[in-house]
């Protein structure tokens, strides 16, 4: 029989964060503080060209301006962040690796523990990984194989060195440094991240993946990812992340830019499992991320899929600008919050081209004392004839101390558009649980099953390996949520 809500919540809250260990490697760490010198130091450390340094400095200037008036529109009070108390550069000491053999075995072990083996022979078939520890990329696998197809997949640092023209052409074109305060901060101090270019007509033969890990204490992570799919190209990209348990909050302010040219398609999947803080809401990652893609060419497509279970605060709206005629944008999201977590996430679909289509499926699950908000915008410009959008956003509440919120903005300036938005909020129906009980499942399994079914439509969009991982994550997060 079900125990009381209190027991349920207790068990649920006690569920531990499995990835909260710390790795002991020697680190290069910049002392905390943010000023022009910090930016110059990072830029110099990475041996960047002058234009990039200048761009960073403009980002810093914008950050100073924007941080005077921190955003207030989100559905939570932004905690005070002391930007001067954060260290903006941390890197494992050993540098200039020629092969994986030279990677610090501790780091390899770390990623192993996370389920991300870097050694190529052990790799899950068909996934190339760029692993980022704190600020720098520590290893990128399968590079050679990709090169044969003309695909560039490397760390942002390497890309700046080897493909400066491509980087210069596209960096900041989708998320300019002036976009918002965290994007400005990222522009100023971004440390590394992944760069990916798929040439004309090439279908990337394997999933590309980046695994992010914050390890050092008092550091922020500010990676920047740039993916360009040239005409007719296709790529599926996966991103995962974890961080050690710490009492203090860590800041993660990443930027992701996607560019899809004519008939190109980019699929970007995230499983976000940053440390969410303890059951009392202490510690955890502040995840303030700007992700945006542009469907530049006709018939292009960008699809975001995210499973968000971690972070103390998530603030993130992967968006698509549908510029090319007949382009398609998609957003599939599962956001699960518990304890004192806060998630304010959603998307923007900006329809500019004709016959553009977008689809938004958002599933929120809130438990404990958490607050889970969907915030989304569908905008149809005056010239976007025959634009279509379908939005479904559902919230599931587990327990009576949490909150579920929906803030969709629908702005339409074109009479030929067809926009549909549906939202529901409910709890798991007792009769569903009872039905499953009657078939021999205990409450916990029943809830897991129902939640999984509830998230199915989104999980189905993840590549196989990730779907399994995401399912496990949801199960872990739910474990013991029902007596």
């Amino acid at each position, binding site marked *: 029989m079900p125990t009381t809500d209190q027991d349920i919540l207790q068990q649920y809250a006690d569920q531990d964060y499995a990835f909260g260990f710390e790795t002991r490697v020697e680190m290069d760490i910049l002392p905390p503080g943010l000023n022009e010198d910090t930016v110059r130091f990072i830029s110099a450390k990475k041996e960047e060209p002058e234009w990039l340094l200048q761009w960073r400095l403009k980002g810093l200037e914008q950050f100073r301006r924007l941080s005077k008036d921190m955003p207030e*529109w989100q559905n939570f009070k932004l905690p005070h962040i002391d930007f001067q108390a954060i260290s903006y550069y941390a890197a494992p000491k050993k540098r200039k690796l020629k092969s994986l053999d030279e990677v610090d075995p501790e780091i390899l072990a770390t990623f192993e523990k996370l389920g991300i083996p870097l050694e190529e022979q052990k790799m899950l078939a068909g996934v190339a990984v760029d692993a980022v520890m704190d600020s720098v990329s520590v290893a990128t696998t399968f590079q050679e194989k990709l090169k044969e197809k003309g695909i560039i997949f490397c760390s942002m640092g390497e890309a700046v060195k080897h493909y400066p023209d491509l980087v210069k052409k596209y960096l900041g074109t989708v998320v300019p440094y002036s976009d918002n305060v965290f994007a400005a901060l990222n522009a100023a101090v971004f440390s590394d991240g992944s760069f990916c270019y798929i040439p004309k007509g090439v279908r990337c033969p394997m999933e590309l993946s980046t695994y992010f890990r914050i390890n050092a204490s008092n550091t922020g992570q500010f990676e920047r990812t740039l993916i360009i799919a040239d005409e007719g190209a296709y790529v599926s990209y996966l991103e995962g992340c974890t961080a050690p348990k710490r009492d203090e909050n860590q800041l993660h302010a990443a930027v992701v830019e996607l560019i899809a040219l004519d008939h190109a398609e980019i699929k970007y999947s995230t499983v976000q499992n940053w440390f969410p803080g303890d059951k009392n809401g202490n510690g955890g990652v502040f995840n303030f991320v700007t992700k945006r893609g542009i469907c530049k060419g006709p018939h292009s497509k960008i699809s975001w899929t995210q499973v968000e279970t971690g972070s103390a605060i998530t603030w993130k709206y992967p968006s698509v600008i549908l510029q090319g005629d007949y382009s398609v944008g998609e957003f599939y999201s599962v956001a699960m919050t518990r304890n004192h977590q806060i998630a304010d996430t959603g998307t923007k679909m900006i329809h500019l081209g004709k016959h553009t289509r977008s689809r938004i499926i958002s599933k929120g699950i809130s438990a404990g004392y958490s607050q889970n908000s969907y915030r989304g915008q569908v905008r*149809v410009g*005056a010239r976007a004839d025959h634009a279509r959008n379908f939005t479904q956003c559902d*919230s599931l*509440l*587990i*327990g*009576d*101390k*949490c*909150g*579920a*919120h*929906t*803030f*969709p*903005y*629908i*702005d*339409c*300036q*074109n*009479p*030929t*558009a*067809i*926009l*549909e*938005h*549906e*939202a*529901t*909020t*409910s*709890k798991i129906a007792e009769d569903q649980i009872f039905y499953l009980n009657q078939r021999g499942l205990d409450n916990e399994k029943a809830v897991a099953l129902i939640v999984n079914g509830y998230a199915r439509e989104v999980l189905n969009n993840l590549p196989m390996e990730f779907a399994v991982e995401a399912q496990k994550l949801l199960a872990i997060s739910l474990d013991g949520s029902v007596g």
Partner: protein
Amino acid sequence: MNKSIFNSFYHYLIDTYQQLQAQGQLTPFSWPAALLTHKQHAFEKFNEQGFPSTKQEDWKYTNLAAPLQQIYQFPVVSPAYPDLKAEVQRLTIPHLQAYRIVLLNGRFEPSLSDQLPESMGWHTDADALHHYYAEEYFASLADVTQVPLVWLNTAFVPGFHLLHIRETVDRPIHVMHLYATQQPAFIPERLLLVAEEGVQVQITESFHQLTDAPTFINYVAEQFLKEKVAMDVYLINQLHAQAAFFHHSEIYLHSQSTFHHLNCCFPEAHFIRNNINARLQGSQSEANLWGIYLGNQQQLIDNHTIVDHQMPSCNSNEWYKGLLQEKSTGVFNGKIFVEKGAQQTNAFQKNNTILLSQEATIHAKPQLEIFADDVKCSHGSTVGQMQEDALFYLRTRGLSERTAKQLLLEAFAFDIVSKAQNQAMEDHIMQLIRDHLDLSAAILPQSASPAHVRKT
């Protein structure tokens, strides 16, 4: 702060208030001290906050700077209007058989109004100010929402009307708001309505302009429904293009009371902003907010609603539909709050818009904020056009394109209009929709030319 507008009209208002106050002419009759405190407080707040700008979330798409570009004079001077009786006759709703209460520029006109029955008390001026309900309710419902335009109302309104429904009223009540001014005028107007336990009442409020001078109407209504009240309110906005209209209704529902609100906005006031907030303060109460708006020219029609579930076992239904023609803009913002402890809540909301011209715009923001788990809440929102296959179907049955469009658009509106609990109101509203639909201009999803024949 750029979150507010401090324009010349604002300064005019502040100066005027201070002058009138200094001359002891702020109000034509003396206000009890308790109420005067509200007034003073409201003035201070307005003085401090000014008009909200588009930087404020609730005004994001509704720019007050445009309608408030000019100086609307205060206090308003009502001209001698030649034939008010005929106007009242003209504006009387056919077959409604209502008790008519006529207000001119916010002032009660007893000679134009009907004799009212014992079941209802209508108090104005000093009579209202000193009524026992005045102290209890005045400003206690609306002002707490911290809306600057409500403060503006409280600060400037010369007095208010108190409609006290003591017993079930045998006929509907029709409050006719007439406006006639020669100069641009700022007209604050206020109603306090208290419905006693168990009463049933139907109220229609219609808004009409008799002259062409620009007016800025600021109407605040506080409505208190005691237990087991059944109340229907119809709002019919038929103001002229020169009108800027702000209206705020704050409705408190006690247990087992039922409220139907049907909000109809028609051409051609260039600016309409309605705040309609229903607070379910007693369990098993029910709020129904229906709305139909039809815009033309450069109209901005903004409906902001809140359904606030504060107690368990309440139901709410909301459905707003819009038809936007020409260069009109619609804004719909519907918030549903389900507060902690408001278990067994059912809250549903829908909103549908049809854009009928290339230059029409809609901004819709349905919104759910839920803090209780045993709830069923949903909202749905669509923007689109007439269904193409329906149009084709009707045309294959011999209906002209125009007739087919008319049928479909009327059907679209009918979902809302049919919520009227009174046949006379239903017919009246439907007729107004017919009058204002411009079918020749309504564009179609596809070009409506005959089947395309390409000669080869």
